[in-house]
């Protein structure tokens, strides 16, 4: 599309060249401003204590050191909270996807009786909510507080994702499903053998959105989880970086040997790495997935 467009618009006058040049320079600066902080943090987390102590802008550390990482792994705290985050992200995303698909499929059938009131009820939750305090009482009333379930169950379905997935399911030709039924498939069978496999790009996109929100989840843990053993990594990160508690966990450390600053950066790296790892794989999906959202319900 844009390839043809640029072909049509090629016009090598001086004005155009200036226009393109300025545009490219500004965009390059914007891209750099976006990414440099990450590179800076990564670089400092790998520098030696002496170099970090001197300060200054480090993009390519002269001295390479793993001491910050050695330190954070010498304590159980980071490992434990990483495991909590990994557990909540995988199990939570599986629950999200299962429940969202199960609900979206019947709602995609325009002939199902009672579909319309349920859809309206779901839409209404996007407009109005009981708010923090009543929700807190429901979650604690169910005995979920201080368990990891409180990070997964209360947001098991996103109303927005549900509606978009429902619209996506509606576009699948009915003929495919009919033929599966003739071959003896039940409705549940049709969903899992026909509809879901055909919708993999959409489901991958939603899976990523759900996974990212679980990994980044922090406030639910603050309100529902008192036990610091069950903190996900984002809560630990807040303790260390923002509340400036540079001692994480049991092992004391010598401030002269490791800069608290490098430790903070090393923890940020660990709270971000999973996303940066999956990013290239998922990038091709999400722009498409976001566009699904613009399809009206």
């Amino acid at each position, binding site marked *: *599309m*844009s390839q043809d467009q*640029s072909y*049509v618009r090629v*016009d090598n*006058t001086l*004005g*155009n060249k200036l226009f*393109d040049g300025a545009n*490219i320079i500004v*965009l390059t600066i*914007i*891209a750099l*401003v*976006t990414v440099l*902080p990450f590179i800076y943090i990564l670089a400092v987390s790998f520098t030696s204590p002496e170099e970090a102590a001197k*300060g200054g802008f480090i993009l390519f550390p002269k001295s390479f050191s793993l001491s910050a990482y050695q330190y954070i792994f010498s304590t159980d705290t980071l490992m434990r909270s990483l495991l909590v985050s990994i557990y909540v992200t995988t199990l939570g995303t599986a629950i999200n996807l299962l*429940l969202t698909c*199960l609900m979206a*499929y*019947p709602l995609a*059938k325009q*002939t*199902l*009786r009672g579909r319309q009131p349920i859809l309206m*009820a779901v839409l209404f939750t996007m*407009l*109005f*909510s*009981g*708010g*923090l*305090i*009543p*929700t*807190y*009482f*429901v*979650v604690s009333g169910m005995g979920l507080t201080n368990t990891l379930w409180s990070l997964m169950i*209360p947001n*098991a379905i996103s109303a927005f994702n549900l509606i978009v997935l429902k619209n996506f399911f509606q576009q699948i030709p*009915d003929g495919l499903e*009919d033929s599966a*039924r*003739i071959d003896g498939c039940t*409705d549940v069978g049709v969903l899992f053998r026909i509809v879901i496999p055909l919708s993999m790009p959409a489901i991958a996109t939603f899976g990523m959105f759900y996974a990212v929100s679980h*990994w*980044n989840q*922090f*406030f639910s843990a603050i309100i529902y989880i008192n036990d610091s053993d069950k903190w996900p990594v*984002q809560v630990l*990160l*807040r303790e260390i*970086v*923002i509340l400036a508690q540079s001692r994480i966990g049991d092992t004391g450390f010598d401030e002269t040997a490791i800069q608290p600053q490098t430790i903070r950066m090393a923890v*940020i790296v660990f*709270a971000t790495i999973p996303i940066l790892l999956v*990013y290239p794989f998922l990038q091709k999906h999400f722009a498409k997935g976001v*566009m699904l959202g*613009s399809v009206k319900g």
Partner: protein
Amino acid sequence: MNAQIRTTGSSSSRPGGSTLGKERVSRRSEWLRELIKDKWMYAMLLPGVFFFIIFKYVPMYGVIIAFQDYQPFQGVLGSSWAGLKHFERFFSEPQFWQLFRNTLLLAIYNIVFFFPLPIVLALMLNEVRVERFKRFVQTMIYIPHFVSWVVVVGVFYIILTTEGGIINEMLFALTGHKIAFLLEPSWFRTIIMSQSIWKEVGWGTIIFLAALSGVDVQLYEAARMDGANRLRQLWHITLPAIRSTIVILLILRLGTFLDSGFEHIFLMLAPTNRDVGEVFDTYVYVKGLTQAQYSYSAAVGLFKSFIGLILVLGANWMAKKFGQEGVY
């Protein structure tokens, strides 16, 4: 909804099908038959329906504690009624106006400083003729959207702190002074906006880029024939083409006017900047969950949800007035 328009899947196995009026007598049994035939469909709906009832609708019912003196041990049914006491207290609280101002100012800043930027950025990206470079820039500017607010705030802390933060190091080298960006209330809103922009501007371009990709290329060709340069093409073709997208997103934005990004503000609040930083949402948290004033904070929360609902419906009404499709 009606039986006679059943055309998909499960209905095709039903012999005959029903016609209007013919089966009015047996409508009840028809209902039952469909219920049984679609039992798996309903079974699949159940977990989701329970989810919405328990975690969305029970809390809506729970807002009645805003009109009670709620005692957790007596529950919603056992607590005594208090009428509008908590609302009256909230509106007469001197802090009300402070919260109101803080929330409103952040909302206005958002519209004025944040909203136009993704549009400008999308227009710039759209003018890039080297496809590779365009994709590279896009890849870079989407990244911050995926990191948590804790990371964003943490990165800003590390860069801005007076104890070895890189920005202050440079400032000190240039001017001999340091600025306590993170403690100064006067810097609070600037930093909040910078963080929002850094995190979300790139992601915000997606929808505009999609709208731009739908512009008819012949229009550009025609404009070039008429001697329009790139800027004029931008002004006369590209911008009008995405005007409806801009209007609808602006209206949507107005609908969520009061949502100032709770996690974000919560993370940035410090004892020194509460006067400028406290918004309705963070106040609910402080009063309710840290000071256990359940009914009072539920009242504040209800007030905010109610205003939010009115704004959404009003914005949607406006959308229809503007000849847009409306969102709901």
